[in-house]
């Protein structure tokens, strides 16, 4: 029988998400992924509450809720959520592709100077970065045209 799992040694806790030494770009993507994930989950609970509890109360309550949410603060929040969705979904797709072993290439004999898998995938990472910024631009243009919707 297993007798309890001890905490991992050298754990840095939440502080370690942001700084633990010589971070590479992918490490910052990891932090962004985690922060956007928590933000999206909080928003999802808020959105679920709004679209279930208030929706079942009838037209007047629904319209009152929509009027309450129709202000610059919530519109800015919605844009942040859209950006978080763009970052989290495209970075998540990159992680899935890498985890399943696509675009990594075949194993090679290590030759100095060593090039690890993360560096070899830099091209894929850059492509996803461009896609993230394009998707962000779409949401921002949509906002500039006429509100967050």
């Amino acid at each position, binding site marked *: 029988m297993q007798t309890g799992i001890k905490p991992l040694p050298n754990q840095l806790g939440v502080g370690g998400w942001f700084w633990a030494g010589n971070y590479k770009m992918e490490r910052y993507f990891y932090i962004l992924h*985690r922060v956007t994930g928590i933000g999206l989950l909080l928003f999802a609970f808020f959105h679920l509450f709004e679209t279930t509890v208030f929706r079942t109360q009838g037209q007047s309550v629904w319209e009152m809720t929509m009027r309450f949410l129709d202000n610059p603060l919530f519109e800015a929040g*919605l844009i942040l959520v859209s950006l978080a969705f763009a970052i989290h979904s495209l970075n998540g797709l990159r992680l899935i592709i890498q985890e399943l072993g696509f675009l990594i290439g075949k194993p090679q004999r290590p030759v100095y100077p060593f090039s690890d898998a993360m560096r070899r995938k830099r091209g894929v990472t850059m492509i996803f970065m461009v896609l993230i910024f394009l998707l962000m631009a779409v949401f921002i*243009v949509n906002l500039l045209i006429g509100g967050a919707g």
Partner: protein
Amino acid sequence: MLKTRMHLLFLLSGIGIAIFLGIHMTVQHLNNLLITGEADPTSWSSMIGRAARESWVVIYILLLFFGLYHGLYGLRGIILEVTRTERTIRVVNWIFVICGIAIFIWASYVPIALAYG
């Protein structure tokens, strides 16, 4: 094996969210840019119109399932990274399972009731 399947479902649910949330965002939140978007997606008539269509009910429930599973499984992973005792793992697992099922039942009941009630 169960952990592997749960993790695989986590990955698949991420793809599911990208598809169904993509549809939701395109129709309801990019309405200023795209001709596919509705003029006022948050109005009562527009919302009731969508609620009456079975395709939207299916999209909402699938999105709910994928979103809940992906979100709660991800949050569970973050929590278990910080505290890793056997008891904590068991308690966290049960809390997440019970909360997930309860939220899923409530949040899927609403669109079903609106569509067929």
